[in-house]
């Protein structure tokens, strides 16, 4: 006979805490924050394409113009840059929750199999992307911190001028090491997105035989577009196509 333990009932906690305490709840939070981050990543990439538009008659580059618009967004209802800071707060919370959920789930999963298989394990469908989410996530976090220091705060930028986005990008990406780091990191972002953008459908429970075949395609196309867009910036600047 084996131990027939009765499951311990969870105490009464606020329902959001209760919900988040379950692994399914954490995955849901990962998916929701993932969607927010995905949306941001896409818009960020799309906005930055303006680097290719050059300057207007007054010599203001389109991308710098766009940067100014972002700072003014929400005026006159909100003071200048207020929207931007609200937006940054949402992003920070999302990223923190995304990372916390990932960390907590990793701990759970390690405990679920303390002893590994001794024979080599062959995977049939789990792909490189799905099995490296933790590593790609950590590297992406490091990249994001560097990226903020480089192009938002400017402390890591050799010649940072507030508001002159195009100038700052050129200053950064003409350094080959930085350009290579950006390229590699953005490929990892794509890989991370490839699994994440498929996985979120499952975690959210969005499943319908009619659109199921499209979910992996969506993830692949989304990841591909983000990789191509983001990698193009350091690549084209480094190669001298923009300058």
């Amino acid at each position: 006979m084996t131990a027939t333990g009765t499951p311990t009932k969870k105490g009464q906690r606020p329902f959001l805490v209760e919900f988040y305490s379950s692994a399914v709840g954490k995955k849901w939070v990962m998916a929701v924050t993932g969607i927010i981050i995905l949306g941001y990543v896409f818009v960020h990439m799309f906005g930055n394409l303006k680097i290719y538009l050059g300057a207007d008659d007054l010599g203001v580059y389109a991308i710098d113009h766009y940067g100014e618009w972002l700072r003014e967004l929400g005026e006159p209802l909100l003071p200048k840059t207020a929207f931007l800071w609200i937006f940054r707060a949402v992003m920070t919370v999302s990223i923190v929750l995304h990372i916390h959920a990932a960390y907590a789930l990793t701990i759970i999963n390690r405990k679920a199999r303390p002893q590994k298989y001794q024979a080599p394990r062959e995977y049939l469908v789990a792909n490189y992307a799905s099995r490296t989410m933790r590593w790609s996530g950590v590297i992406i976090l490091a990249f994001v911190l560097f990226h903020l220091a480089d192009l938002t705060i400017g402390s890591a930028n050799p010649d940072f001028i507030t508001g002159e986005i195009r100038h700052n990008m050129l200053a950064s990406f003409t350094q080959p090491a930085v350009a290579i780091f950006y390229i590699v990191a953005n490929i990892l972002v794509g890989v991370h997105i490839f699994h994440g953008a498929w996985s979120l459908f499952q975690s959210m429970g969005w499943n319908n035989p009619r659109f199921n075949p499209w979910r992996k395609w969506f993830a692949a196309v989304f990841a591909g577009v983000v990789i191509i867009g983001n990698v193009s910036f350091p690549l084209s600047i480094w190669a001298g196509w923009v300058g």
Partner: protein
Amino acid sequence: MDVTLKVWRQDGPEAPGRFETYEATDISDHMSFLEMCDIVNEKLVERGIEPFSIDSDCREGICGMCGIMINGHPHGDQLGTATCQLHMRKFSDGDEIVLEPWKATGFPVIRDLVVDRSSFDRIIEAGGYITVPTGSAPDANMVPVPKAVADVAFDAAACIGCGACVAACPNSAAQLFTSAKLAQLNMVPQGQPERYDRVVAMVDTMEEFFGSCTNHGECEAACPKSITIDFIAMMNKDYIKAKFKNRRLLGQKA
């Protein structure tokens, strides 16, 4: 044909394990994998050596009793096949075959290749049923079930509870097992009254024993009944709904 078996031997749940090597000689193509194991074990008995423990019962792929890692694959690498349905013709003369038990915190090893899967029973006990005290059921044809629903409920109900999904999952998650039972019961009209209580109770119990799903899909590939991970998505959806829904209004349609 002759093959070499590398078998995981472990005297008890806490004991350290080790691999032992045994030769299986004069094996016929028509033998099943488990019959080959029987022969090796019978020879061990006759030599006075304790045979390796291995579970199996119906040997036709329905009871779910068998199940080991064979060369790093749950139930071997043939898709949609339980260990008992593997045949030696899929192996070649001279092969080395590695046999390991399922490894998961929720499945402690009892001995050698035998593990304790009682945790699955706990999940079912938590809510994997429709409450119908014997005798209280209405006429069977009172509640029609659309054919598409009945068919997919069967697909889910085909689960044999072998544990290959947990064994295959890099996280030792039992989502496929749990969601298959939930899908069957939460999909049919008879299961609606308990739908949200059921999903919360079963998921919470599952999480006491097993890891979490990271949507690799290994479980689906390992499942001897090829149960789809679509059911995991349905379970997630029901769980989230259960958390947000005002259940006092469940009697209302739309």
